[in-house]
């Protein structure tokens, strides 16, 4: 990678890393896993796609990130099933589910309204959360979001409409 590309990628990551981390944090609710997912996405983008046009970096970066988040969810589900099986077998032993892991400072920095929004988002299915965050927060077009999530544009529209409908139900009263 030449110096110009390196500088351009550095600028791209500086502009994207915080939101990417917060997005991963919102979806995983785990500080360490969110950091790891962002770092992994950065590595993959640099190693595999630094030669691509700069305007392709953002959709590629978010595609890698969201694929990582999808895999993370799969692993969590497997762990959850295993944990439930273990709970069934262990009659007397108490096995606690891992708690939502946020850094202490992050907890201190979020206010009540933000907590309500995050809680509302977390009530949505993963695809709706991802679609909403990419479309509404990252301000991606339907096409870009479809690429990032590896789904069709029609699916993006459906997930987004359902997400809005649910969020309106959950946050609508406060919004009016």
């Amino acid at each position: 990678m030449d110096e110009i590309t390196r500088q351009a990628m550095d600028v791209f990551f500086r502009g994207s890393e915080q939101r990417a981390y917060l997005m991963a944090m919102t979806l995983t609710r785990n500080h360490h896993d969110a950091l790891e997912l962002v770092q992994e996405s950065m590595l993959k983008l640099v190693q595999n796609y630094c030669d691509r046009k700069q305007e392709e970096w953002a959709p590629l970066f978010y595609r890698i990130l969201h694929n990582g988040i999808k895999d993370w969810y799969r692993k969590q589900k497997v762990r959850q099933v295993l944990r439930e099986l273990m709970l069934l077998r262990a009659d007397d032993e108490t096995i606690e589910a891992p708690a939502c892991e946020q850094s202490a400072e992050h907890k201190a920095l979020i206010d009540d309204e933000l907590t309500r929004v995050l809680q509302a988002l977390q009530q949505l299915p993963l695809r709706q959360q991802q679609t909403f965050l990419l479309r509404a927060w990252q301000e991606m077009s339907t096409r870009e979001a479809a690429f990032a999530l590896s789904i069709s544009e029609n699916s993006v529209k459906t997930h987004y409409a359902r997400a809005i409908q649910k969020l309106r139900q959950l946050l609508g009263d406060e919004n009016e």
Partner: protein
Amino acid sequence: MNEQDRLEQKIRQTLDRQQLSDDSRNALRKARMTALDSRSGQSVLSWKPAAAFASLVLIIAGVLVLGVQNEAEFPQADVEDLAVISSEDEFEFYQELEFYVWFDEDQDV
């Protein structure tokens, strides 16, 4: 601005209010540098497969050259030798071939 736009804007603004801790900022900066350096390191590492391939080519070339030289030193089988080897006649027949030629010529006379 319709109701949906207002809701989106409100959520967007709320999410944007999140601030990262210094620890998280530092961790992200470190992740960024690691990612950027990984490619620089890889460009150096990419010489290794190339060097390995070049070595392999040299070894194969060496083996082929030596093989050709050895082949040149190996005595070439004559067509006559092949005829002898592949013949069903007794080997002694060929050892006494000169006698039979002489005998044959002598008979003609």
